[in-house]
């Protein structure tokens, strides 16, 4: 009996009787949390290098313990609730944002045998949850009862709604080529396709998806909801301590989830040029890290768009491009 059948049998057994999914989910969340923590470290370090400075280097060797120190600091800070806020909304908004961002992990396969919930409409679940995470942002903006937060919340809602469309349309091409919404099936379809990844036939879709993903996660150059030079910190200007950290976590969760989706839908998932024995998801992580690096790189390079320009870009360029992509994909599909 080889390892895979053994695993499947164990999976079947445990799923039925003890709920392996729970353990799996826990493992996944812990791993992703670590990734989030070290994504902040990587961001500071990489941007530091790009800006000719060193970055964090005080806590631990080469500053490696910096994220942990940050978490401890934020945990011990005072959680301030301003007087005028809408209390329940203010309290719950960061959790909505974080939970919506993190739940998407449940349907993302890191490896064909490692997925918490292998649902058939995984792509739809991800799209739904990513737009739900902006719900937390809007609530935070409204509940803070502050001028800057309110403007930030408004910007976030408008931006996320418009880029949601572009992103969904960009993924339609992938669905058409793969013929499925199941992420494992999409990866398998890519392996069977001539280019081994959808990024090449779906180059327009990939571009639209990446731009929309940056906008969806509110990062530079689309970080208008939290534009520090105009709105100070935008929707979370009134938050402090752990609630503030939750928003940060949500942003990085969003970034990682979006990168994972991009890896799965466009870059061929866990398949690589040659298999690495022992670490089946090696290539998945390599591609993921590259995309995260891409996010950081963009942040270090580009200035910020203006609000109306962001809307213009979304509605006038990205959505028509995505529609064009669907038409082209359809034609190829019919002709081939």
């Amino acid at each position, binding site marked *: 009996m080889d390892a895979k059948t053994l695993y499947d049998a164990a999976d079947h057994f445990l799923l039925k009787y003890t709920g392996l999914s729970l353990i799996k989910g826990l493992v996944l969340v812990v791993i992703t949390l670590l990734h989030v923590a070290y994504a902040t470290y990587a961001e500071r370090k990489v*941007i530091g290098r*790009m*800006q*000719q*400075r060193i970055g964090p280097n005080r806590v631990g060797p080469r500053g490696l313990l910096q994220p942990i120190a940050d978490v401890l600091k934020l945990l011990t800070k005072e959680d301030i609730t301003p007087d*005028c806020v809408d209390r329940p909304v203010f309290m719950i908004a960061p959790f909505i944002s974080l939970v919506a961002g993190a739940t998407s992990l449940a349907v993302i396969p890191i490896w064909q045998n490692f997925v918490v919930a292998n649902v058939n409409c995984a792509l739809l679940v991800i799209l739904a949850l990513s737009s739900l995470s902006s719900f937390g942002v809007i609530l935070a903006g409204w509940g803070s*009862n502050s*001028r*800057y937060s309110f*403007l930030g919340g408004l910007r976030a809602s408008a931006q996320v709604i418009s880029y949601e469309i572009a992103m969904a349309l960009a993924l339609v091409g992938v669905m058409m080529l793969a013929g499925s919404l199941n992420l494992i099936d999409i990866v398998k379809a890519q392996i069977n396709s001539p280019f081994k990844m959808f990024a090449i036939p779906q180059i327009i879709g990939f571009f639209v998806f990446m731009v929309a993903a940056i906008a969806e996660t509110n990062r*530079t*150059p689309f*970080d*208008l909801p939290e*534009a*520090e*030079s*105009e*709105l*100070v910190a935008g929707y979370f200007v009134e938050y402090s301590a752990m609630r503030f950290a939750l928003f940060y976590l949500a942003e990085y969760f969003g970034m990682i989830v979006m990168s994972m989706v991009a890896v799965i839908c466009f870059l061929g998932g866990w398949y690589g040029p040659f298999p690495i024995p022992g670490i089946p998801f090696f290539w998945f992580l390599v591609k993921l890290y590259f995309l995260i690096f891409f996010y950081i790189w963009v*942040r*270090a*390079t*580009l*200035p*910020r*768009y*203006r*609000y*109306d*320009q962001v809307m213009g870009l979304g509605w006038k360029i990205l959505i028509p491009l995505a529609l064009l992509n669907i038409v082209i994909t359809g034609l190829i599909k019919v002709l081939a």
Partner: protein
Amino acid sequence: MAPTLEIIKKQQTEDIWDEPYFVNMGPQHPATHGVLRLFLELNGETIVRCDPRIGYLHRGVEKLSEFRTYAQDMLLTDRLDYIASAANNVGYCLAVEKLMGLEVPRRAQILRVIACEMARIASHLLWLATHALDIGAMTVFLYCFRDREWLLDIFEMMCGARLTVSYPRIGGVRMDVTPEIIDELYKFTEEFPKRIPEYETLIDVNRIWLKRTKGIAVVSGQEAVNLGLTGPSLRGSGVPYDLRRSVPYLIYDELDFEVAVEFEGDVYARYRVRMKEMREANKIIRQCLDKLSGTEGEPVLAENAPDLLMPFGKIKRPQAAPHPKKGYVVRGVELPVVPEGEVYVATEVPKGELGFYIVSDGTGHPWRMRIRAPSFVHISAIPAMCEGQMVADLIAVIGSVDIVLGECDR
């Protein structure tokens, strides 16, 4: 102030929104370059009305200067535009020298020009850094600081101070430069023109940067003059008004440099003007260094220059107002007397036209010292430039007119 605050409070506590949407920007805000406070009336993201409030950094320099000697007042001018303090010192010294009829040695004049132009580069670098950061390009910020650091180090070599240098003095400069400083300056002028393209490649060909700056806050030349804009902000609107050329002071009439002018009148044009000006300033420093070698060994301070008389020990806080004529009595030493008269001397500092209007009544203290600060006038022009634009443009406008609040509030 009160009605607006009341409206805000009403909107916050009672949830009644029939009044316009007010946003109070500042005085603590990352993009207002100090403690500027802007009252904005918004319609969505568009600015309907903008009302700047200043005075949060008011230290009463004009009042204070009436109670100090002329030489002591020079230290106050450092604190006006603390980013380019050498240029302020020179402006003040020129005004007092004109009043006293003092002749400044040539070597001191050359050194003053060098200090002025170094301050100009340092100021423009800081401006570019913060302007880019406001628009969101954060890498430029640190690139600019890297080079500004070098300049500040040279300032430190010249006079021991980095920011508030007080290097010029009434009648000359404080001390001569050493050969090491000249070598370092040669190295800097050699290297700096290569650094400017680095910033430009980061932002000048960037579509987002161009979208954010081109066609924003357009001011025609005539309107700019009427609004009182000076310096790069005016030259971005096509008016070639540069006091270094129009009313040459120091040795600027001997130097070969171009007055940078752009004609579009938008944020981008003002940015281009400053980039050009940095190159020109570099050229000027180079020429001055060459001239400096011809005046080796000459004095850098006029013989009859007034001394900076600082009281020894601590000054006790006077209980009543000091005597208007004597001010602090400085250990019985006679104060240098400046002849009766009045003078307005304007110099081209990095921000624009810095004017000193000094009225002397023939004693050791100025009867009235008025500082015409470019930032003050530029802030007064912000409402005219930003009304009808978006909030994000306001940030670009504040950046593009280059203000520093120490100078505005005095």
